[in-house]
């Protein structure tokens, strides 16, 4: 059983201390990616619900940089402490409250700031599950938690309507939350104890806040609101937190009696702001929002620099300990690693694309997913792409630009890829894109055929067909197995068969013209055609004409037979393997699942089910159905279906009793397919297996692959982590690029001439030495001493080599 397709952008990621690893919360696990290769190297499994925050224990000294410890909090009410280099769990603390956000300010304080108290305290934002007697329940709670002794401190700092996200100052002195149009900031007490009183201030604004950030060194806080304004308060909390000095000065821009020296507003973003972050030296402010542009503000002057056309709303910006590296999380489940001073995109870590919410007019036209037999799924994305995603590797293979248009994330959606279909061997793909008309002008439907050049699933455009069915949209596309032929059906009562002429038979042409051309057109009684399917050997074409199923000979384009009537218009058709049966799913008020016998032209059996997807196994007579549970069942709170809204039923065609069933969540908009997984053959069951794996993808694009016939062993096989050691090449920057990394200086060891650490400078220091601005280099005072030491060290190393 393989699970995958989880969101990488549910919470902000975290860099390890050496900036070579990126810890990303993916569902109930934390995935660790290499920042050099962008591939997953490990994962932390242990939580049972969504992980909501991950905090890497910062290195207190340069020597402890290699330490890899982190804290995680989860909705299952636990906080875990990990060593993620191994990876293993060290400690698990049960809080008994679902934690939505956690900060540990003490970790961030440098030892010089305050002597470490013995206990470690975390501030958690949790959901109060007990209180419900008040008319307006305040279910969010902000509490203090003693991690060392693992009990909740007495104080509840604040109760809110929803659990809020806590933001902490990089120096660990303040933390704050947003509450509608208020900003609440607490000062972390210098001496932490269970009963320490926290002082707080409140800053007001007229609009709803969306994000906040603290300056790393100064007493300065920036917050973004939903209208795109950035507010910056300087010297906040001087009265409350600091020594009261001057009272009579006027505070420009500060609202009411708020405790701040001044407040200034910047406005560039047209829509709400999701990202605000200060650079680690505090000279720049990064901001980003729905429009997908990262803006770099020079804090003193307000001058702007842009990283435009990221193509998707930005969600989080995280700076790494390495000054040349940062990451942006985008709403399309993508994490971009940035080369910092000049904002170049180095790597992109792409998860499965999340579903997008198309306008109502598109809803009827859109259809889910395209699977091929090898476990590859093609998904439609919001920015007119098709993502080719490997279910077995849980990794993006490629992305195909269907419509060459500049996507503006904030705009209304008017162009959508509505259908995507893969042929069974995955070599041909067809897409349908629709442009909605503006007041009846300029609508367009466009059918495109793509061919994959080789095994690497890079699709190239083969044919473009504008308006394949005049002004009607295409209701379905199906490929014929073993033959380059496809069928498209439309609501205006006709279907077209397309064939690919590969231009081999034409000798005299200078350029062989290869492309898809219309081969035949058919219609049945002027009824709208809604679905089509080819039989497993490609000899029969079934086209659903409203409530009837028509069978055709695709070569001669002749009507072979008609199968009776269903109760509603048919949504999906599927031939069942090698058998003589065909299964039809019809919609409408009386939705129905019906199985038809093609040799006798009769209905075999049927159920009243609201079917979301049908998949049949090619080699046997079984098929699987994803059905939505009726409302009454969901509302009845039956114990078997808590939180579940769908069910997967596995049928054998001979009898109407299901062979097996599984209840699932978020079934609406889900997809189902049988895939052949030869790669995993020896992993799961060494015996010869006749059936394929069943892949289920839910409405949130999380998926699971399992063997439907021996569900007893639902052993979780984690996704194969493909390590590529060759790619794990270290790249040095700044000082290290010239002289290699400094070793832990050990005088005694050094006196023994044979030092084990051979330091050689990286081969081409001139490539990277000037790659950063001067502030990324170590300060000269530090550099000088280290420089001399390195010179001393170099000689024995070189001698040893010779």
């Amino acid at each position: 059983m393989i699970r995958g397709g989880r969101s990488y952008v549910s919470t902000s990621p975290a860099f390890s201390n050496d900036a070579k690893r990126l810890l990303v919360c993916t569902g109930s696990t934390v995935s660790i990616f290499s920042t050099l290769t962008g591939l997953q190297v490990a994962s932390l499994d242990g939580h049972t619900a969504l992980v909501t925050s991950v905090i890497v224990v910062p290195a207190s000294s340069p020597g402890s940089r290699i330490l890899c410890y982190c804290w995680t909090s989860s909705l299952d009410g636990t906080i875990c402490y990990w060593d993620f280099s191994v990876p293993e769990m060290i400690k698990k603390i049960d809080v008994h409250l679902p934690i939505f956000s956690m900060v540990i300010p003490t970790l961030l304080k440098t030892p010089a700031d305050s002597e470490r108290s013995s206990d470690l305290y975390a501030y958690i934002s949790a959901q109060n599950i007990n209180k419900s007697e008040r008319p307006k329940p305040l279910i969010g709670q902000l509490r203090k938690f003693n991690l060392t002794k693992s009990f909740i401190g007495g104080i509840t700092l604040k109760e809110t309507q929803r659990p809020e996200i806590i933001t902490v100052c990089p120096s660990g002195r303040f933390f704050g939350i947003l509450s509608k149009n208020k900003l609440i900031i607490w000062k972390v007490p210098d001496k932490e104890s269970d009963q320490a009183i926290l002082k707080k201030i409140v800053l007001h604004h007229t609009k709803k806040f969306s994000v906040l950030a603290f300056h790393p060194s100064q007493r300065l806080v920036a917050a973004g609101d939903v209208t795109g304004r950035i507010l910056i308060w300087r010297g906040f909390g001087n009265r409350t937190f600091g020594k009261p000095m001057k009272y009579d000065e006027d505070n420009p821009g500060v609202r009411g009696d708020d405790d701040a020296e001044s407040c200034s507003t910047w406005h560039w973003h047209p829509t709400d702001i999701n990202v605000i972050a200060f650079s680690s030296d505090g000279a720049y402010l990064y901001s980003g929002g729905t429009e997908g542009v990262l803006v770099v503000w020079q804090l003193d002057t307000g001058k702007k620099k842009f990283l435009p056309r990221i193509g998707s709303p930005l969600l989080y910006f995280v700076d790494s300990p390495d000054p040349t590296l940062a990451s942006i999380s985008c709403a399309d489940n993508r994490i971009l690693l940035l080369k910092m001073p000049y904002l170049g995109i180095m790597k992109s870590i792409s998860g499965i694309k999340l579903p997008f919410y198309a306008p109502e007019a598109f809803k009827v036209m859109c259809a889910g997913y395209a699977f091929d037999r090898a476990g590859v799924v093609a998904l439609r994305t919001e920015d007119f792409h098709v993502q080719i995603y490997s279910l077995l590797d849980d990794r993006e293979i490629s992305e195909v630009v269907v419509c060459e248009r500049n996507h503006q994330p904030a705009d209304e959606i008017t162009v959508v890829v509505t259908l995507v279909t893969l042929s069974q061997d995955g070599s041909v793909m067809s897409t349908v894109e629709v442009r909605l008309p503006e007041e009846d002008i300029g609508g367009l439907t466009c059918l495109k055929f793509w061919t994959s050049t080789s095994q690497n699933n890079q699709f190239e455009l083969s044919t473009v067909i504008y308006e394949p069915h005049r002004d009607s949209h295409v209701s379905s596309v199906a490929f014929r197995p073993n033959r380059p032929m496809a069928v498209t059906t439309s609501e205006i009562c006709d279907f077209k068969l397309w064939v690919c002429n590969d231009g081999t038979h034409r000798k005299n042409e200078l350029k062989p013209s290869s492309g898809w051309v219309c081969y035949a057109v058919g219609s049945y009684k002027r009824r709208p055609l809604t679905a089509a399917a080819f039989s497993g050997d490609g000899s029969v074409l079934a086209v659903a004409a409203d409530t009837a199923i028509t069978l055709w000979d695709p070569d001669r384009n002749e009507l072979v037979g008609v199968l009776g009537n269903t109760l509603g218009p048919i949504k999906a058709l599927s031939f069942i393997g090698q058998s003589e049966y065909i299964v039809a799913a019809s919609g409408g008020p009386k939705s129905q699942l019906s199985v038809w016998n093609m040799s006798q032209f009769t209905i075999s059996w049927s159920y009243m089910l609201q079917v979301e997807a049908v998949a049949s196994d090619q080699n046997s007579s079984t098929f699987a159905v994803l059905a939505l549970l009726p409302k009454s069942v969901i509302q009845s709170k039956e114990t078997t279906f808590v939180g579940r809204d769908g069910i997967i039923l596995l049928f054998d065609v001979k009898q109407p009793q299901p062979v097996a069933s599984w209840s699932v969540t978020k079934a609406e908009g889900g997809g189902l397919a049988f895939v052949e997984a030869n790669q995993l053959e020896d992993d799961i069951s060494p015996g010869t297996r006749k059936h394929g794996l069943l892949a289920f993808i839910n409405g949130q694009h999380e998926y699971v692959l399992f063997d439907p016939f021996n569900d007893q062993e639902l052993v979780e096989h984690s996704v194969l982590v493909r390590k590529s050691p060759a790619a794990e090449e270290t790249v040095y920057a700044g000082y290290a690029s010239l002289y290699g990394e400094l070793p832990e200086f050990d005088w005694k060891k050094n006196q023994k001439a044979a030092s084990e650490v051979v330091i050689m400078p990286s081969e081409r220091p001139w490539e990277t030495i000037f790659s950063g601005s001067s502030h990324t280099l170590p300060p000269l005072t530090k550099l000088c001493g280290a420089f001399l030491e390195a010179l001393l060290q170099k000689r024995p190393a070189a001698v040893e080599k010779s």
Partner: protein
Amino acid sequence: MEETFVSKTFPLKPKLKPTSKTSSKTPESRYWSSFKTHETPNLISSVPSITFSGVAPHPFAAAYSASLSLFSPQTLERTHTINSFRDVVSSASFRCDGSLIAASDLSGLIQVFDVKTRTPLRKLRSHTRPVRFVKYPFLDKLHLLSGGDDGIVKYWDVAGENVILDLKGHKDYVRCGDCSPVSSDSFVTGSYDHAVKLWDVRVGDGNRAVMELNHGNPIEDVLFLPSGGLVASAGGNSVKVWDLIGGGKLLYSMESHNKTVTSICIGRIGKEIGDEWMQYRILSVGLDGYMKVFDYANLKVTHSMRYPAPLLSVAFSPDSKVRVIGTSNGIIYAGKRKVKEGAEESSAVGGFLGLGSFSEQPKSRALRPSFYRYFHRGQSVKPSKGDFLVMQAKKVKLAEHDKFLKKFRHREALVSALGKNNPENVVAVVEELVARRKLLKCISNLDLEELGQLLMFLHKYCTVPRHSALLMGLVKKVIDMRAEDIRNSDKLKGLIRNVKSTVQEEILIQQGLQEIQGIISPLLKMAGRR
């Protein structure tokens, strides 16, 4: 490497056009359409005959009405006109040295003129009916051949103005004839009695032809092919190629004209005279207005061109630079091919001296880093083999409207596209505006002058089938939204009137097409039933 991850800017692209399968031009059809056509209009009546002089620079003569005009091959303009005819001139022929020209008219008179002075030197009077063709034999300066409606082919002694031979084999009007390129004694004639006859003056009996070929249609033109062994005859809708050496065997019948083929001539394809690539073609013109190029070696029509009028005569200059076609309504289409000056010169030089290359071209020395010029090489220098190439990411070229669209300045984008005179781009901008939901706002923001531009564009293109679905909707919206402005401006009113007339024309066309469809569909039904 880094650029691959950044999402790119896509410039706006117009919709793809379907490429037809024959769109790729063969080198041959490119050659034939490289003759830039020059029209000489307003000749009084049809042009039944065009002939080229055999010596450089190959001037040509065209007969029309009762006059004969000489044309310059360089300018393709009329240089002189001979008017001393009493009736319509039917045919003309240059002598092989190009100094004399013989012309016949419908009164039965044949006159021989000096080309330089245009004075009539000889008048040959023997035909009692209109003369249809007159021809100087190949490399023979003394004799002349003629035929006419009296059915007699006459062989003349020009100097003495008397007939040497009367060949009385034809039973109907003799319309055409040609002399063999290999022998000055034999020639063919064609007649309305469907027969092509091969004559030889050495055969004493004047009434028996050496060979007789039955074309099957009244013959309009007949031609010796350059080898001298083949003869092409044109009549009816067909051009037939005959093998004389093989005893008059029919080799091929080319039947791609829809109406009577009126004239044929020899065309050459190839670079220069004497080039091994030189190939001969038969150019044929017909009353259907088509000129066809027939490759009689491969028995294939290689090119076809349409002219707006029925064509009566065609001629091709011996240096393959000029092609002249005469029509029935008094227009001469003279086409001239551009020849590279260098090629011409070298052939002339080679012809003169009989030598290949006598002077060696000064070779440009390779640039080395020690030269001053090395550092001024410029962008166009080709990299040498050992050079390390630094590849630059290709820059996306953005048009002006793209730049405006990038800045969300939609109205400016539309106006900029309208100003550029490329309808595909305008449609692409309109489609993009639709996708951005900004088209209607854009229309309402246009000022009067820009609205005029838009209406002008719509007037021109709203009925083009590719765009009509979009643009007709746009026309309606523009009229709806800007009715007030249009009413207040006379200029805009005029433009709207133009649009209206375009639409009405289109409606008429559509009605006509529907009528045709109504006529055809029962026929198709019946054909399908069988």
